[in-house]
């Protein structure tokens, strides 16, 4: 304990977290996935990153040029003058570009992860699906956290009747067959990516709310909270500025697990045909296509399945490592 005296609380947590090598590796995996999501167009697409054409440099991914409007870059590449060049992303196919001459081809040099039933490049779809799957995870959990912190905080802070009413609300949401509820709502509204995020978020807040409620009930008894109220801080100021920071760590743990859960829910929805609408690619969407071709299209099962598995495991491992890091009793107990 004495060695940590110069570290802040989060510094201590970070130090504990770093010691868990598995969790740390998982964090790096997540950062790489976020990088893939951010730079998807530089990794896969049919627009070149850089062109030198007639002695001028173009960056078609970043800027739009009037003189390149309607230009077929593949043809352009073939009729280049000496000294000019076209630099394509490593995967030269866009996720929606279909090539009906190579439908359902197994992995090859041309298509590293094979093609799907419309001749679309699976690797490209998966790279672009990373952004969709991750953003569904992050935004759905963001929505769930906001609702959970608000309701849980209010219940724990005020107690009494307010707590009773909100606790019944927790119970209602907990007993609902959530996946079925999500499916029903998406069947009635159109399953756009935003609706999916909102519905997963709006049905997934109970865990976080219960945690925050418990923490707030405990913190409410502390002298510093009483002092903050006594000094005339209004309720929301006390809750957000003084109590929330002390209740945040377990919420972040729950949120990390929540992201893993949300990604799984989205793949399940895609599988049943209520996921991200076409032509937008998501991992669940690629995986669900394999359903019809399970006899031979193994690449449609293996690659998206592995991506989902890797991502969900990474989030779960980070959540687990983080949980051990904030709990001093568990700090030395890892697997």
């Amino acid at each position: 304990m004495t060695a940590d005296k110069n570290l802040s609380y989060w510094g201590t947590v970070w130090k504990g977290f770093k010691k868990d090598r598995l969790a740390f590796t998982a964090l790096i995996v997540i950062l790489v996935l976020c990088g893939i999501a951010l730079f998807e167009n530089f990794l896969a697409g049919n627009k070149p990153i850089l062109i030198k054409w007639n002695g001028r440099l173009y960056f078609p991914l970043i800027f739009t040029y009037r003189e390149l409007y309607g230009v077929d870059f593949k043809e352009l590449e073939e009729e280049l003058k000496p000294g000019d060049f076209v630099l394509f992303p490593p995967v030269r196919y866009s996720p929606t570009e279909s090539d009906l001459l190579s439908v359902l081809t197994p992995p090859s040099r041309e298509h590293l992860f094979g093609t799907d039933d419309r001749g679309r490049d699976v690797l490209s779809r998966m790279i672009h699906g990373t952004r969709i799957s991750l953003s569904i995870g992050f935004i759905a959990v963001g929505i769930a956290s906001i609702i959970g912190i608000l309701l849980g905080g209010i219940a724990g802070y005020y107690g009494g009747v307010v707590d009773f009413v909100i606790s019944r609300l927790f119970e209602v949401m907990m007993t609902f067959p959530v996946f079925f509820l999500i499916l029903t709502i998406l069947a009635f509204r159109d399953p756009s990516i935003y609706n999916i995020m909102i519905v997963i978020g709006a049905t997934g807040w109970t865990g976080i709310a219960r945690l925050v409620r418990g923490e707030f009930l405990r913190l409410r008894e502390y002298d510093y909270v009483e002092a903050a109220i006594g000094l005339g801080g209004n309720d929301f100021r006390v809750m957000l500025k003084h109590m929330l920071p002390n209740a945040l760590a377990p919420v972040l743990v729950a949120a990390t697990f929540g992201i893993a859960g949300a990604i799984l829910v989205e793949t399940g929805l895609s599988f049943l045909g209520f996921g991200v609408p076409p032509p937008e690619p998501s991992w669940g969407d690629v995986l669900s296509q394999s359903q019809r071709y399970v006899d031979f299209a193994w690449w449609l099962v293996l690659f998206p399945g592995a991506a989902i598995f890797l991502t969900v495991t990474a989030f779960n491992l980070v959540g687990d490592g983080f949980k051990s890091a904030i709990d001093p009793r568990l700090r030395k107990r890892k697997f």
Partner: protein
Amino acid sequence: MRSYILKRLLLLIPTLFGITVITFFVIQLAPGSPVERKLNIEEGVKAEAITKDIVEQTKKLYGLDKPIYIRYLIWVKRIVTLDFGSSYKDHRPVIEKVGERLPVTLSLNLISIFLAYFISIPLGVYSAVKEGNLSERVITFILFALYSIPSFWLAMILIYFLGGGDFWNVFPIYGILSPGAENFTFTEKALDFLWHITLPVICLTYGDLAYLSRYQRGSLLEVLREDFIRTAKAKGLPDSVVLFKHALRNALIPIITIVASILPAMIGGSVIIESIFSIPGIGQLGFEAVLSRDYPVIMAIATISAFLTLVGILVADILYVLVDPRISFESRR
């Protein structure tokens, strides 16, 4: 104890109220009024042919001319007498349809929950006792990985390898009984049922199994650090007595209440697995109802499964108090 149970039963009322309100209003989310939809479904009438009169008549017939809160009250009044209306699809009473399907889903899930507990408790104990050695670390990692596998992905892999894809044809992948099972003897029927549900049950079980084992391990590790365990060891009790008589009994208590968080996921998890394996259960019925917008069936499934879950939670809570004398009925809310 009686007063506790009474209090809990009274608390069911606001919760059930909330559940029915949410279900009722989710249905109201549906675009287009149910009247036009019903008219279209029933008579195949063209939209222009529906005169205002017909719409008004149908509205009256289904009570849709009344304000929404009256409609809600009427709906609740009918539900209390277990009248969930009749299915839009085949006009059979919903309660009958649900009644046919419920035993299938319940038996599948109860078998799966039983298996999950049956395997995970010893596994959790083993990995807590052998904490830190190689086999424990491997088990813990595998369990962790299992927890991240989408169930339908595993289902597809199992079908591919064991269900007559390119490899072995060991297990059937459709339904719960072979064709012609009506003529089987009881034992044959039971074996046929078990043979059919092997793959679906694996898919339903492994996630809970992973979760429960980790939970059991954590809870036992926590108990093993308590003072009374040190005392028991210090007075010279053999390790096995300390473990099974002192530690495990206490470590089993929290795992009972966990059943409360597994139950609500039952119907949801069943939706995917039942539609993959064509199992005629609640999940498949629900999915079909969602696809064909069979509102009465959707509402009935949501309400009934929420109610069953509530009862499950209540039973778990009562068990919790019964097995742990430190917790009294009065102190638990």
